[in-house]
C-alpha cells in the first residue's frame, strides 16, 4: 500500500479547524452584532476597514485565516459527502479542493484590491 497524499489536505484541515475554533465565533459575533444592533458600526465603517485591511500585516493574517478556513471546510465537506453516501471520492475531492483553490485565489485578489 502506498502512503496517501491525504496527509497534505489533512494538515490544512487540522490547522484550519484549530484556527476557526479560536477565531470564527468572535468574528461572527462582530459582524452579527453589527447586523442586529449596529454595534461596532464605527469599526465596520468604510474608512476604518480600508485602513485596517490596508495594513500588510493584517492582510497576511486575514489571508491565513481565510485560506485555512476554506481548506478546513473543503476537506471536511469531502468527508461529509462520504458520510452521506456519496462514494465518488475522487470526484468529490476535485470539486471541493478546486473550490477551495478558487476561494484562495479570490482571497488574494480581494486582499490586493484593498
Amino acid at each position, binding site marked *: 500500500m502506498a502512503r496517501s497524499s491525504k496527509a497534505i489536505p489533512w494538515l490544512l484541515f487540522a490547522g484550519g*479547524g*484549530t484556527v*476557526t*475554533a*479560536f*477565531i*470564527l*465565533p*468572535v*468574528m*461572527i*459575533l*462582530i*459582524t*452579527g452584532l*453589527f*447586523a*442586529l444592533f449596529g454595534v*461596532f458600526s464605527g*469599526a*465596520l465603517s*468604510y474608512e*476604518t*476597514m*480600508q485602513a*485596517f*485591511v490596508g495594513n500588510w500585516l493584517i492582510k497576511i493574517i*486575514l489571508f491565513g485565516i*481565510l485560506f485555512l*478556513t*476554506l481548506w*478546513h*471546510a*473543503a476537506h*471536511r*465537506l469531502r*468527508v*461529509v459527502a462520504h*458520510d*452521506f*453516501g456519496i*462514494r465518488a471520492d475522487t470526484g468529490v475531492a476535485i470539486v471541493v479542493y478546486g473550490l477551495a483553490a478558487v*476561494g484562495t485565489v*479570490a*482571497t488574494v*485578489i*480581494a*486582499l490586493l*484590491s*484593498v
Partner: protein
Amino acid sequence: MSRKPYVRQMSKTSWFLTHSRYKHYILHEVTCIFIAIYAVILIFGLFRLGQGPEAWQGWLDGLRSPLGVIFQILAFGFAMIHTWSWFKVVPQAMRIQRGESFVPGNLIIGAHYGVLAIISLFVLILAGVA
C-alpha cells in the same frame, strides 16, 4: 460445505441517524457547511471593500437583511459547536506527558477555552477601539 456468512449492510445514507453518538458526530461535521459559506461571505466583503464605499455599504446591508441575520445566528451556533467539539478531542490527539503522568485532559481543554477568551477579547477590543 454449508457455511454461508450473512452480511448486514449498513445504510450508506442514513447510518448516522441510528445512534446518538453518530448524530453528534454528523452535527459537528456539518458545521463546515456554515463555516464555508461564512468564509465566502467574508471574501466577498473584501472584494466589496476594494470597490468603494457604496459597494461596502451594500455588503453591510446584506449582513443586516433578514436572511443575513438568520444566517449569522445559525453560523454562530455552528461555529460554537465546532469550537466545542474541536476542543473536546484535543487531549486525545495531543497528549502531553510531564514526567510519568499526562497533563489531565480537562486542563488542556480549559487552557484552550482560556486562549479562546483572550483572543475573542482582543478582537473585540480591536474592533471597539479601532
